[in-house]
């Protein structure tokens, strides 16, 4: 038998029949569909209409990537932030994260209540934690800065894309089609916003709970400086914002790994590994000033805010390093995902 692919088809090309009568094939359970199909090409006749016309010779007004879309389709309207948020918000990990973050201050208060009140150690954050709401918030930030917040941010940034890949829903999003750049943009924005919300939730719960339990007392720093409530909250806000900015490096890294891996665990785990490695390298004095580039080096620079004259230098340097890493990682993520073959 000769290779049919070498022969022009003898079959006359099907013409555009529009809603051809399909009643001959009607059987049992498909009446509804037949009805639906019969009325389907109302606004957009298949192959007809403006979109198809745009594809004919001389109809090159629109770019190739945007041409030929279905009626009502526009790349700018795909996977809106709202749509992405809807995909994420009902997830179990979102709920669990939110609950755990709200529980942490409760656990702290419980631990303080259980303790024997022995504060012979030192007038540091720990001892001051029970001074008032602002101090509990300060202490919470202190204990969360090192690991918890990087972990949560890495989860929120690294998981959305890789979990879509692991559910196989990523390819369906892409053939919706959601342009890849837009997909990343929406995922990234929602991840960053939810990171901000998560950390803000932690701090607000800590502050409110502390105020409820210990009173709305002024903030007292370990150096013995007292800030009135307005001043203290302002500094707490800046410190929280700084922690978020400095954690952006981990978020960006997790996001990058998330575009390369189908396993959410890999994305989050590699960011956690980065935290550990960075912390270890930071201990090596011989590295000298090179350590400033480590994403954990300036992690605690916000502590300098809680003295009468805030020390901004480290905050600025730390923020710039973190932003630098984050921008590089996110840029790489966009670059690599745009060229990736999506197999999952």
């Amino acid at each position: 038998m000769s290779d049919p692919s070498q022969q022009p088809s003898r079959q006359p090309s099907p013409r555009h029949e529009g809603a051809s009568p399909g009643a001959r094939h009607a059987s049992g359970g498909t009446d509804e569909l037949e009805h639906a199909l019969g009325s389907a090409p109302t606004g957009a006749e298949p192959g007809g209409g403006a979109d198809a016309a745009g594809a004919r010779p001389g109809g090159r007004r629109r770019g190739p990537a945007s041409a030929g879309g279905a009626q009502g389709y526009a790349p700018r309207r795909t996977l809106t932030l709202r749509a992405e948020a809807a995909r994420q918000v009902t997830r179990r990990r979102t709920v669990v994260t939110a609950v755990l973050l709200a529980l942490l201050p409760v656990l702290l208060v419980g631990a303080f209540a259980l303790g024997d009140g022995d504060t012979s150690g030192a007038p540091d954050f720990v001892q001051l934690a029970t001074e008032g709401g602002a101090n509990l918030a300060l202490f919470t930030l202190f204990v969360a800065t090192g690991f918890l917040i990087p972990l949560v941010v890495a989860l929120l940034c690294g998981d959305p894309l890789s979990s879509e890949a692991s559910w196989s829903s990523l390819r369906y999003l892409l053939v919706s089609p959601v342009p890849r750049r837009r997909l990343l943009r929406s995922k990234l924005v929602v991840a960053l916003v939810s990171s901000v919300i998560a950390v803000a939730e932690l701090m607000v719960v800590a502050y409110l709970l502390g105020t409820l339990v210990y009173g709305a007392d002024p903030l007292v720093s370990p150096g013995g400086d007292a800030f009135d409530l307005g001043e203290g909250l302002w500094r707490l806000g800046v410190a929280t914002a700084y922690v978020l900015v400095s954690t952006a490096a981990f978020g960006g890294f997790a996001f990058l790994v998330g575009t390369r891996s189908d396993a959410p665990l890999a994305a989050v785990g590699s960011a956690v590994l980065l935290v550990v490695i960075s912390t270890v390298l930071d201990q090596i004095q011989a590295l000298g000033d090179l350590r400033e580039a480590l994403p954990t080096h300036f992690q605690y620079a916000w502590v300098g805010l809680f003295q009468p004259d805030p020390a901004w230098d480290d905050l600025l340097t730390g923020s710039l390093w973190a932003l630098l890493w984050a921008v590089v990682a996110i840029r790489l993520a966009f670059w690599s995902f745009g060229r990736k073959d999506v197999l999952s």
Partner: protein
Amino acid sequence: MLLPGPAAAVPPAAPAPEASASAGATPSAGATADGLSEDAAAVDVEVLQVPVGAEPTAPDDEVALDVAVYRAPGGTDRRPAVLLAHGFLSDRTDRDAQARELAAEGFVVLTWSARGFGESGGLVHLDAPDFEVADARALVDLLAERRDVLLDATGDPRVGVAGGSYGGALALLLAGTDDRVDAAAAAITWHDLAGALAPSAVPAVGASTPAAVEDTEPGVLKRAWVTQLAAARGAVPVAGVGGPGGASCGSLAPDVCTAYLDAIATGEVGEDLADLLRASSPATVLDGVDVPVLLVQGQQDSLFPLSEADATARRLAEAGTDVRVRWIAGGHDGDTSGGGFSTAEDDLFAFLDETLASGDAAEGAPGFAADVPDDDSLLDQALSGAAQQPGAPPVAGPTPDEEDREVLELPGYPGAGGDAGTPPLEVRDVPLVGDVQQVLSPAGGTPSALTTLPGAGALGGGLAALGAGLAVLPGQSATFDSAELEDDVLVAGAPTVRLVVTSTASDATLFTSLLEVPSGGQAVLPRQLVSPVRLTGLVPGEPARVDVALPAVVHRFAAGSTMRLLVSSTDQGYAVPQDGRLYGVALAAEDAAPAVGVPVAPADDVVLVSGETEDGGVEVPWGLVIALGVVLLLSALLGPVSRRVDARRAAPATVPALGPGVLAGAASLEGDGPPPPLVVDGLALVYASGLRAVDGVSFTVGRGQVVGLLGPNGAGKTSTLRMVLGLVHPTEGRTLVLGHEVVPGSAVLSQVGAFVEGPGLLPHATGIANLRLAWQATGRPLEDARIDEVLEIAALGDAVHRPVRGYSQGMRARIAIAQAMLGLPDLLVLDEPTNGLDPPQIRALRDVLRGYASSGRAVLVSSHLLAEVEMTCTHAVIMRRGQVVAGGSLEELTSGGAGDGAGGTAVVVDDVERARAVLSRLPGAGVERTAERAEPSDRPAPGDGELTVTGAEPEDVVRVLVEAGVAVHRVAPRRRLEEVFLEVTGT
């Protein structure tokens, strides 16, 4: 007698290896020490051995000093020189950092280890004129011979001398005995060593300087200090050794050693020692000092208090010498960094620059400046220092350097220099009240009040935190209080008070101090200092009047607090009488109401000096800012570039130039009709290994067609579908959907519904929520989704309201197929859609697909169920090893080629029902209505139909039909699709 303070605690750099006097530049081991500027680290260091006078105990052995000369590289110009002397208990390496900074400023700097210290030979003579001072003169000779040192005259170099403590006294002694010295700077050092080690503080008569204290003899030995200093050089009292046992003297010279040990044993300074100490005192040579002098004295210093510098400054000012005074917050009990210059190090540099190099007075440099300590911050420092635990995260506490500090600044030293000079500070009389009080001096001198620990710099704050509690022992102290102060009083200097003392012995030893008692708070002993006074020649029981000078401090007594005069009989740091006695202490009140006279600093002259961040604001790391800017810029630029690259790859394809490899539907491309739903044109996918997974696949899916994509496992079906959907970039070829080329994210994909390689659903969402979320992602209006209609197809019933994670495989497949059909796209691409479906569902799906295509849309379905394809599809494309091996309408595929009749005979007739009746009478024949697959246009007339007859020869079939009068349009042998498949795939 500088003890290792915080700065000196750093292990000194290893002395450079021995080098001859002609040795060239030798890089120092300390060059990379932290905190040095680049210029300072680049300074050349020359290490020399300089021979000086021999020790009297070994007149034949030459003593060599270990000397280092620092010079900034470059140039052959002559530069002014500086001799930098080190403190007690250290050596020249201690001055390394300071020497480098000075050298970088343009000086030739010479540091050396004094005899008895470091690598130098000889013994310690306590800055004796014949030894240490003579050595220093030899070093000036050395400088005079150097070709890089500026000369005022032949043999007279331009040289300044600076040092702290032990080195400070040397600086003054050298300046007083060598005319070649052009400037001297002395920090935390003594005026009269005998008085400093055994003081008895009474106000200096006729002096109006703020800390004018005279040390009368005999004084009260600072036993703790003397013991510590002697022991530090290896001199310890050894039981049974009366004289200078060689081993028990360490590096102290025998005469010094003997006198010291004697003093420690007796608690008295003997004549021998007094003579020795006097000879080593700047007081004896001050008349010879006629060069500018900078005096820096520490407020936190129980060894050499402010009154020492006061006496020197007073003497120099009287002689008309240019003298500047700094009272820094540190001292032997506190900060001894910078060789004792501490916070006044900048003043030292400016002073040397002015007096030796530029001659310009530093702008706004006052003649007198005193740090006003902030007691709260001292306390905080002490507490937070103690709080820091090892391993705890770094807590960035405020460091003194970075904080603003208050400084009292006056144009000259107040009260010195006669009428032309700065007027003396106002002395305010603060009335005190208190009855006569009995003070016990216990036998053996214990228990003793505890005020300060000698040299306990790090602990000094800690003691301050204890307050004055241990300074006031019940029964051993008398207190006299003032009324509450109406205003803040900034005391700057030594207050004086007149007491009436009665003793049960012929002498009395008392310690006085002025405490601040905050309202409702704990008493504070400023700087932990007490001032001893010793009265002799008393008649037991007879009251004696005595003026005493209290410790000189700079301390702000806050408004609302009270001043408390404390008179006690013991102090841990001093030698006190060993026999028990009782003193009566009262305020003298003959002429006026009893009062303490305190020198008060004018508040207007206290200025705020900002710390390190003097330039204000934040130091911006511009390198990082620029790096971030560059990265952002690159990102912004690369974005459009990569988009343009993508766009070029997706060149518009309005008229597809298809080669001969087109299968079905090519005609429509040539005509003016609408483009077909799908054209696959030469697609190839080549892996990095060179494997051609898909190799030049071309086919067309026309409207109304249900095209089956068939092939054995690994034929490239799924890879082809992935490329069709823009999920995988093809190596070659392209895909056109409705005439538009597909690239990742092409808008035309919105006209395509897909179900590839299994469902992709959000497990936490319900079935219907999955459909909604999927549609939401497209951004199209909800009413276009037809959710209700596709739900009918899925036929999941109430299960659509349950989360997908609980679905069976078939349920997932059905919801996923429904998802693919959302919006009823023009092209439906289904990959193995029947997986997981049961036969009734497969049948229902078959009807759905045929109905779908018949409405003018198109379906591309891959499957391995040949029977299923045969019943569902109108066309089929068969792939093998990445290539299309057969394609066309099902009719063509099954009828073409040499049929053996096993598949039966297909006939197209005008009257189907009649033909069926006729044929069924043929023996052994099976008749069946062929599935509707051809286009309606293929039929000659309505009512026509095709029948497949099996079990009969074609000629029999035609004969029977013709006999029955049925019109036969076409007769063809019919094969099963399976047959075709096996044939073309070669299996």
